[in-house]
């Protein structure tokens, strides 16, 4: 075996490291580690932090908007219920008022008619009284004249004739009231 083959065989042992390669790897890796530690990791972590903050902020904002919308909905529902109650109340009131007005009008009409009737009664009574009075006078006069003419004597004595007439009328009255009570 010549020298070159021996050298090749020795160099071929793959478990024996080349120290220069170890050195270059260590230095290269140290540079990479420095760059990653100093620039890459902080930048990525900051991006994540900002992103998660932005997402959380967005979620919070959406939750607030949702809560606001819910509150508004509740408010509208409440207002709607209030308005319905109010409308019902007004309707009830109007109905009651109408009924009251109707009752009042009925009462008024009844009292008015009663009043008119009463008045009519009073008037009729007065007229009847007047008529009775005038009749009494006239009938008395006429009857006296008639009787005077019939008996042929003057019954000029007013006092007597008046007594006669009164008695006659009283008889008439008693007869009448007896007839009315029958």
């Amino acid at each position, binding site marked *: 075996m010549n020298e070159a083959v021996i050298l090749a065989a020795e160099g071929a*042992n*793959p478990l024996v490291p080349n120290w220069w390669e170890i050195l270059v790897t*260590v230095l290269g*890796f140290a540079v990479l580690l420095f760059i990653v530690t100093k620039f*890459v990791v902080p930048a990525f972590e900051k*991006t994540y932090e900002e992103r998660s903050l932005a997402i959380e902020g967005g979620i919070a904002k959406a939750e607030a908007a949702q809560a606001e919308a819910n509150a508004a909905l509740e408010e509208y529902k409440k207002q709607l219920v209030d308005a319905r109650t109010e409308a019902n109340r007004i309707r009830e009131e109007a109905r009651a008022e109408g009924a009251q007005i109707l009752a009042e009008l009925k009462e008024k009409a009844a009292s008015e008619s009663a009043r008119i009737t009463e008045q009519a009664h009073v008037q009729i009574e007065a007229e009847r009284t007047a008529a009775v009075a005038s009749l009494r006078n006239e009938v008395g006069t006429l009857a006296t004249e008639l009787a005077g003419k019939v008996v042929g004597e003057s019954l000029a004595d007013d006092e007597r004739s008046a007594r006669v007439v009164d008695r006659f009328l009283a008889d008439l009255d008693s007869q009448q009231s007896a007839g009315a009570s029958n």
Partner: protein
Amino acid sequence: MIPLALPAATNESEGFIAPTIDDLHLPEILPWGAHYGEGFGKQMLLVLLSVALISWFLVAASRRRQMVPGKFQFLGEYSYNFVRNSVGKDLIGEKDFRPFVPVLVSLFFFILVNNLFGSIPFLQLPTTSHVGTAYALAGFVYIMWIVLGIRTHGIGYFKVAVVPSGVPKAFIVPVVIIEIVSTFLVRPLTHSLRLFATMLAGHMIIALAASGSAFLLTQTSGAMPVLGVLTMAGGVGMYLFEIFIQVLQAYVFVLLTAVYIQGSISEAH
């Protein structure tokens, strides 16, 4: 050491020459064409390129800080969030995870991009398939969780870490030995080698499929070109699968880092 070196290629010009691990160790750039391991090479250039790309992407995506992110900002935020919440917050806990977000994010993007370099045409080298890079990252995590443990528990952290509660007295010695080996010796090794080995193996398989297809397709005899088409198709399948593995390993590495951190800062073992 296990003799992992593949047999040296034969000198027969007729036969197929399988790619070896040395094909991942290209001659250096500075000084140009020097032997691998004697200068500044492609792997180191890609590591620096990944740092520049990741820094540009993360700074540009994070500095816009729009409330409603565009596609670019969204891509940055989505991947950042994935590490921050699915790995950091879920594993370390809501209370304590914040200081560790930069470490987890840096580790995830660093490993992801360096793994994916293996699947990008012309770059075509997963820088994590060079064990130095995997050692460096796992070593960084190893030192970090030990320091965190000491800061949380004081020097008694080592007792907390290796003496589980509720073990019978008779078993305490073997259990402590097992814990010391598994926590302080095996853990950093598996953490680094898992990443390195998957990347190396995946890349070797694709390299093998590609060179095998190239060899078979240029043969003139019989069924060789047909086999070449099959190996090509298999290579494309492995290429897609490798992209998945590259993403998965970045995730696994950060996941384990979070688990280790959580173990160091939590109260009991």
